[in-house]
């Protein structure tokens, strides 16, 4: 497997949708190719950054308005 093919398959690999043969080829390439290994580590760090970053919160005023709407017997 060449580097450009590996790049295209990294997301499929992470998603677990590759067949066993392609999966093994990706793993084999990653073992021997330092730049592709570094790319994978960067993408893992990106995923971690996203998971651990605080997300915006629905403003309280909007939350209260929606809660009131859901309590009101008539739809609008």
């Amino acid at each position, binding site marked *: 497997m060449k580097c450009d093919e590996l*790049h*295209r398959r990294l*997301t*499929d690999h992470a998603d677990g949708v590759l067949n066993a043969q392609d999966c093994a080829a990706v793993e084999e390439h990653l073992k021997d190719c330092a*730049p592709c290994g570094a790319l994978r580590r960067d993408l893992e760090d990106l995923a*971690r950054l996203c*998971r651990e970053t605080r997300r915006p919160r*629905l403003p309280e005023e909007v939350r209260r308005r929606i809660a009131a709407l*859901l309590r009101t017997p008539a*739809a609008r």
Partner: protein
Amino acid sequence: MAARNPAPPEVREKLSRALLDHGDRLYSLALRVTRDPDLAADAVQEAFATALERAGGFRGESSLGTWLHRIVYNKAIDLLRKRGKETALPDEETVVPGTDEDLARSPSWSRPPDEILLGAETVAALERAVGELTPLQRVVFELREVEGRTTDEVAEILEIPAGTVRVHLHRARMRLRALLSDHFRKAPA
């Protein structure tokens, strides 16, 4: 307009629970589409009003959370269109220069320490970088990478094939890695 049947109490209860469980995530999704806090808040509020009206038609084929995400996504696009679409819409993708190979050649982040990887400056750089993605890349990235939904759930929310989700997610990841590469090179060691 004909009077609507009021939604039964159990439906109100489920939607109230969903507001607690999914409110912030729905708002984040609307923000990624509209890039406007007021418009995003309107999209979430209108989505709950619509869900209340249509709850009888919800057949439980998807989870309530997934169903609400789909409504918020469509509301956000509708609101942008009504406003004269100052922001490009997710279904109007622009061609972005640079191939995957160009992106892959960006310098590695070289495993930054946690205080830099998770620091405020990196978070701000990530926000700026996400702003440079195409609209569909932004939404796919938000749902898949940030929210952690499965590819199939993202496909269901956006009503696009799972393979298309994976293509946009891959491109989004590669672009963000390239865009943040400069940030990490400049970060103090």
